[in-house]
């Protein structure tokens, strides 16, 4: 079964607007990660947030983590058409296996 559930499943915004995607998970985690997938391509790692961190930034990306609610959000600020992609959260729930469990993803469309 999927560890991460993402919301919304699809999101359409105008260029320049902010996009927020949410991820909920079920079990305790070591860290949570976000990946991007452009159409027809493999996933690309964006950012990792550890279980003892509450917020992390990377460029136009801001990730928050609330372990009490078992949820995370990814905010993309000042979106661009090139941000059009699917975004997946992934949880690392076990130590030293390298395994991640991926959510079903949010499809983001940024209209120029």
């Amino acid at each position, binding site marked *: *079964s*999927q560890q991460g559930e993402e919301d919304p499943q699809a999101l359409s915004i105008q260029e320049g607007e902010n996009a927020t995607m949410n991820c909920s998970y079920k079990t305790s985690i070591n860290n949570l990660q976000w990946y991007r997938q452009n159409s*027809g391509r*493999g996933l*690309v790692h964006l950012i990792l947030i*550890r279980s003892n961190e509450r917020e992390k930034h990377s460029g136009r990306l801001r990730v928050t983590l609330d372990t009490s609610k078992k949820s995370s959000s990814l905010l993309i600020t000042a979106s661009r058409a090139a941000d059009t992609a699917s975004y997946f959260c992934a949880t*690392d729930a076990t130590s030293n296996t*390298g395994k991640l*469990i991926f*959510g079903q993803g949010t499809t983001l469309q940024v209209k120029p």
Partner: protein
Amino acid sequence: DAGITQSPRYKITETGRQVTLMCHQTWSHSYMFWYRQDLGHGLRLIYYSAAADITDKGEVPDGYVVSRSKTENFPLTLESATRSQTSVYFCASSEELAGGPRQFFGPGTRLTVL
């Protein structure tokens, strides 16, 4: 070129045939993974490997076989392909970052079973 490659990129086969999907990485990462991606199911782990000659089942292993005789290669075999195995298959390797593992994905193989 450094990275993770998959071959073939596209494959059409018939029900009952054996198919092998290849995966090769140049980083010498210990961990490698095979996923399938289907609409409505996201990414599901088929098999993974912690090192050469060490493999383990993931969430959906039935109908698949893997081997890992060398660190850099991790082939996935469908012993007798079924239509339900029509999917996009991704191979990944994992590098340990500060804070946790980070996965690198290949470009995928789109498999159609007729």
